[in-house]
């Protein structure tokens, strides 16, 4: 019997107006800016989740990427909700929303913007949607650090803290955006969870 390994069982990459699921082009937009792309992608997926419209752009991007990642690829009933973790990273934290919030401060500060002035809120939105209760963490790096994500997520899996993990990169500042998220599970065969494989998918 083969030893169980950490396997990338699904991936979703969003960037340059294109969306890839497991390396295949799923959706191509023709949006002038990311604020048009995100609702366009929501309409394409039609998930019937009105709370989406209340999210900030970082959360919308991470939420959509995770929605695509899991759809048809994740057997949720195979795991206890506390066994599914989420580990995200980016380079600009919640700056995109921080700046929008700051613009409201001179007049009437917006409560609904204020609640998104932390980067890990995107993890909360994903967990609320899927009721995941496992370990989560959000890291800030200058650029995508696949080696760190592999090591940290691998550690969570090896120590039994989680049995499945959604991990990757969710970055947005104004019109610059990129999401690359991976579902990692313990399987006997499949695409090995390595930094090289993550970088290859990230750079699609």
């Amino acid at each position: 019997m083969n030893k169980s390994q950490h396997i990338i069982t699904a991936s979703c990459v969003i960037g340059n107006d294109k969306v890839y699921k497991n390396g295949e082009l799923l959706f191509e937009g023709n949006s002038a800016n990311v604020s048009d792309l995100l609702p366009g992608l929501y309409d394409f997926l039609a998930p019937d989740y009105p709370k989406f419209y209340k999210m900030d752009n970082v959360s919308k991007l991470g939420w959509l990427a995770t929605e695509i990642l899991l759809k048809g690829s994740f057997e949720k009933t195979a795991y206890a909700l506390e066994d599914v973790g989420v580990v995200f990273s980016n380079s600009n934290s919640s700056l995109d929303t921080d700046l929008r919030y700051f613009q409201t401060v001179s007049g009437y500060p917006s409560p609904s913007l204020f609640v998104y002035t932390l980067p890990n809120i995107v993890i909360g939105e994903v967990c609320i949607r899927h009721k995941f209760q496992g370990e989560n963490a959000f890291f800030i790096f200058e650029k995508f650090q696949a080696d760190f994500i592999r090591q940290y997520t691998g550690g969570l899996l090896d120590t039994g803290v989680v049995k499945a993990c959604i991990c990757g990169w969710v970055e947005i500042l104004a019109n610059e955006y990129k999401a690359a998220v991976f579902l990692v599970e313990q399987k006997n065969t499949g695409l090995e969870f390595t930094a090289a494989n993550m970088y290859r998918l990230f750079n699609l």
Partner: protein
Amino acid sequence: MYDLKTQLIEQLNLQDKKPEDIGDDEALFKEGLGLDSIDALELIVLLQQNYKIKLANAEDGPKVFRSVRTMAEYITEHQGKTV
């Protein structure tokens, strides 16, 4: 009340709703529109920003924000005054 519904949709990011989808007496919270506590704060901002009405007494919130009609009545009663 149509204008107030339009303002609610914009202020609360209810892009999946149109003004005609919101009943004049429909509950704004819980079983009605399903607004939450952050939305309640946004409604207070809406009153200040659009009508210069400051809701000084927090206990009035549930009564004022029960429906579009109760909001409209409160605005009509207090517009131009400091509450």
